[in-house]
């Protein structure tokens, strides 16, 4: 298994290289030091970009052997050639208390040990996420017979996560015990991205420390890491896209908006809820910057096209039925008939968000910070609250119109799918709490 871990790390190094290229092309980082402080954003951007390209290639009939995985990552990585020669600019001090970093590192190390011994046991992971990855790996691509199989759960879910897991299987063999470690790497990348953007935008370090500790020590995060499901990756993509969107709002960097689009595309290609999050993010972004609303709306549309359309075409060609239909959302009789679900689902989701056994006090604190910062409310404030509210509203509509047994659907999924809005809000909270006089952490930045 140690050798397999080496293979997993090699695969993830490829995703990181790909992301360095994508982020470098977008002008997110410059110079070797700039790359080091942007590793989190680069990794997640690489995972999203590779996953979307892999999904497209699978739809086109590719098998994605180990060499093809390497080739895709290499092509995406070429964008870093120019960035590595750029000026990294001034590096502001991290300014976090050392004991906070030690506490975060210690908890992550404990989680790593726990995940090392964790079997594949969560229902969604063993019934369809990992079987899909195994099928991509063992059948060398999207076999229409198997992926359209009658008994395959959630056949219409996009295949970014199975494509990523299948790519790691090319390096490790079919080793399912490392999938939890893959989730941990994604979480660490998100934490690094939160720190990077908080430093870049000169956020309050105390609030940053509170958010980092709250995420790492949240029991729900530990539980979800051990489940190897798609909710944590989709939440990480959504939150990181929100961070890049905030950089676009505050610094007018178009490259940041492009990266937000790439990450949002990754979210949409991971899970159906990802599409809800993408719409929420770019709608909130357009409202926060309504004079330039065309840019975020275009970025959001591009993210959905890249993340979802190839997969939708494949589903249509192979007559695979979809759970999400326009009829579900516009049928007055269906909506009126199930309107009683709305208060129940809203109350249940609210409890799952506020439950201290899951998230300690993360969300109430984020909301209180927003209330305290309202006098100096900037665009990021509206992005954070608007994006979170719209994402939750979208999830509420999903429960309202669900074709599954309502109580079963709610009970088995609500605790997981609220992770997206929670991570999004938490990631942006240090930026919301910026002092009114705050300027960029990098003097070279606008």
């Amino acid at each position, binding site marked *: 298994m140690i050798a397999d871990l080496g293979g997993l790390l090699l695969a993830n190094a490829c995703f990181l290289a790909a992301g360095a290229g994508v982020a470098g092309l977008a002008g997110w980082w410059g110079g070797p030091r700039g790359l080091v402080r942007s590793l989190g954003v680069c990794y997640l951007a690489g995972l999203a970009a590779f996953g979307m390209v892999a999904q497209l290639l699978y739809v086109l009939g590719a098998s994605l052997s180990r060499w093809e995985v390497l080739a895709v990552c290499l092509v995406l990585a070429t964008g870093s050639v120019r960035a590595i020669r750029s000026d990294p600019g001034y590096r502001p001090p991290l300014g976090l208390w050392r004991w906070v970093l030690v*506490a975060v590192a210690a908890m992550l190390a404990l989680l790593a040990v*726990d995940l090392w011994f*964790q079997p594949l046991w969560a229902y969604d992971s063993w019934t369809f996420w990992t079987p899909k990855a195994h099928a991509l790996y063992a059948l060398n691509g999207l076999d229409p017979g198997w992926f359209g199989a009658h008994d395959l759960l959630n056949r219409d879910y996009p295949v970014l996560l199975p494509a990523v897991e299948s790519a790691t299987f090319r390096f490790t063999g079919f080793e399912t015990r490392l999938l939890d470690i893959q989730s941990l790497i994604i979480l660490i990348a998100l934490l690094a991205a939160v720190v990077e953007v908080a430093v870049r935008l000169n956020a309050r370090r105390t609030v940053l420390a509170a958010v980092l500790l709250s995420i790492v020590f949240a029991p729900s995060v530990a539980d979800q890491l051990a489940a190897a499901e798609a909710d944590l990756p989709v939440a990480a993509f959504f939150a990181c896209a929100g961070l890049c969107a905030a950089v676009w709002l505050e610094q007018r960097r178009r490259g940041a908006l492009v990266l937000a689009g790439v990450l949002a595309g990754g979210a949409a290609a991971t899970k159906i809820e990802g599409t809800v999050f993408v719409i929420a993010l770019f709608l909130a972004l357009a409202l926060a910057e309504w004079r330039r609303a065309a840019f975020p709306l275009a970025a959001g549309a591009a993210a959905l096209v890249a993340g979802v359309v190839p997969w939708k075409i494949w589903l249509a060609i192979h007559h695979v039925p979809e759970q999400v239909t326009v009829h579900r959302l516009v049928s007055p009789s269906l909506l009126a008939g199930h309107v009683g679900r709305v208060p129940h689902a809203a109350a249940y989701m609210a409890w799952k968000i506020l439950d201290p056994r899951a998230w300690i006090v993360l969300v109430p604190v984020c909301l209180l910070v927003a209330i305290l910062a309202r006098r100096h409310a900037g665009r990021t404030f509206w992005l954070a609250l608007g994006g979170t509210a719209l994402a939750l509203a979208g999830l509420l509509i999903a429960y309202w119109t669900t074709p599954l047994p309502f109580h079963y659907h709610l009970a088995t999924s609500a605790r997981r799918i609220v992770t997206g809005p929670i991570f999004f809000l938490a990631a942006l909270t240090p930026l919301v709490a910026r002092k009114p006089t705050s300027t960029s952490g990098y003097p070279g930045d606008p």
Partner: protein
Amino acid sequence: MLGVPSHPGAVGYAVLLLGVLVTALAVLALRRRWPQESIERLAALTIAIVVAFAPYVAWRVVEDLRVTTAMGSYDRSVAGPVQAYLQPYLLDPVRSIIPPGATYATVVGPGVPYDTAKRAFPSLALETLFPRISTAPGEAQWIVAWGAAPGSVAPVGRVIVARRASGSYPALLVARVRR
């Protein structure tokens, strides 16, 4: 996590209480350094609460490790079906009955005692019978029935008992569809 107790119990609550007490003492000791600004004060309070919870969160992980490190490699490989109240080897004999290129349909009847097992049975079939393809009963070449008669969903030939009834679990039956 697989091995976390569903309720903290006496030890869990004791660890939580210990964390709260130690943090309260630390906050008292550091009260002169308590920030003045409201947002900073709220963030500091949050940090204190998380630190108070930290021993309990770490205890959960350790409890999980006690369970998962005691599992053998076979137990690990079948943890998913076991969590769904399924016998992981249930469908193993079916592999030698249904040829690899054939299609099959699953049927689960009321004889199966657990709802989770009923729901998860088709997924166990998908995993065990890979790469055979599952279809709707009307299109399948074979029927795999658990707690139900294969003939209830399609006209079938001779019914094979792939696995006999065991405890509260009904027999697993396989039959070829007659076209």
